[in-house]
């Protein structure tokens, strides 16, 4: 219970941290613990900015990504954030 409390406090602190300004260019990344390696995002990306990474999970090439957001809508595990 103490552990859960600490984690919740930690989350609240980090939420306060959200108070910072948002970066001017959005950036998408993949939550590797949620990605199931289905490759759907790779197939939909119009810029070929997504590839398979070292652990078989998707990674986004930030230099090529144009933030169209198609990968977010298609991901069956909602792993892109």
């Amino acid at each position: 219970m103490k552990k859960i409390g600490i984690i919740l406090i930690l989350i609240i602190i980090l939420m306060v941290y959200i108070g910072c300004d948002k970066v001017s260019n959005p950036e998408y990344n993949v939550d590797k613990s949620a990605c199931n390696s289905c490759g759907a995002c790779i197939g939909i990306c119009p810029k070929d900015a997504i590839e398979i990474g070292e652990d078989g999970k998707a990674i986004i090439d930030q230099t090529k990504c144009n933030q169209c957001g198609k990968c977010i809508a298609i991901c069956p595990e909602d792993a892109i954030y």
Partner: protein
Amino acid sequence: MKKILILLLILFSISQVFSDEEHNNKSNAKSKNKYYKIARSLYRKPFGETLCIPFIWLGNLTDDEKDKFDPSNEQEPKDLDQQRRFNLTNWSQISLNYFTTNAKHDINMVTGASQEAESINTKGKFGLKYQHELTGKISEEFSYDVKEEIFYSEKSHERRNSFLTNNLKLSLFYKQETTYLRLQFNNRYYNPDETNFLNLPGVVYNTQQQMTSSAILHLKQDFGKLSLNVYSNLRDLEYRYVVPLEENNDEYEVHQASDYDSYTDAKLFFKIADHMKVFGRMYYKDDLNELSLFDQMNLGGGFEYDNKIDLFSSIKAKVQYYNNISDKINNEQDHNFVTQLRYSRRFRNGISGFVSYINRSCYDNETSQIYRVSNMLRIHAMYSYSIENLNNSYLLSGIKYNPENEGTLGFIEQNQYLFKDIYSTVNIKYSFDLFTSYSLKIEYFLNSLQSFWIKNEYTDFYNIQKQNLIYFGSTFIF
């Protein structure tokens, strides 16, 4: 100053979590001989499909049995274990989809322009998807994996760029106690006559994907407390682009082009304590084309904590810093911080779940400001329950909070045993900014490895398109 205090507070909280875990480890060791109920196992297959297999064991487990039935490991069914004696496993799925709605708009195949005013008659159009995975062992050390996916649709599909694609992956693995090596070749082919030209923001011409090939090398080597992880990927992108002729905007010139990219990701880990590692990382992306516009270099490091406390709970944490060097990325993202936390827990009454949080922030030297790149909080809870003495149904619910990238959503899914090896799955997903989807799937299991299913999926992509698809499919493992 305030930001530094917050950071210190976060680090202090993390250290408190770790010290608390050590205490829990000791107390959990005392309760090893208690009764355990292994609720169920979700046997997750590639390509995002989940095959649910009833899996129940009640009783007083020995330590060996507990390891065997550890729910955190993905257990394979016994039938499949027997098949593995032949060192060969096939997983195959074929599905036919049928559109019952008209598209609100379609994309011009040549110019990429959206024809929003027109309603295209797509009702009654078909699509086909075939997926196959073959895994096998050559010897104790060597194994291989072949994945193939063919997708065809008569209609422009909101979830695809092409009407016809073929995706092939060939992998060869070498595994020893301290060495892991993977050689992989990927090829994605888009039928040139049936692929959309894409009108990308900021790009003056429309592009059409043709083919992507990549060669991957991945090496992991352990040297006791030290371990090395090197990944390299060489990509070839084939595409076409159209340029309108100046005199007449209705005429276009089509050009063929190739791009080459090279990715290298190297990490060096050092184990400083039980469950804890520090690491240094170098990521280098080399744009091998003439202008090298898309080069990128990341240098950084951090620490990882991964502790499976007992059969029922685990905690993971990762804190990372990296310096970003690239002309294509704004200066404000030169210094990046990533914090990840994940706590998962199972209870004996069939309830399980996890809380996961990821924060990405960056620091701008020029303005001395910290910016938030992305925050994601994810909470999932699952309740497994029995019907007719089979613990084979579940209710799963979750939320994802991601305010920066319009990724906030909630979902609920119920998998229910109906009768005589027939299961139903209902899924409702509501995204605040992107879409709402509803699906119903009825699946009949011939046995634990083979099934037939029918599925209806309705998706409303806000302000873009509403589509309803009926799928007929089968899944086989042999």
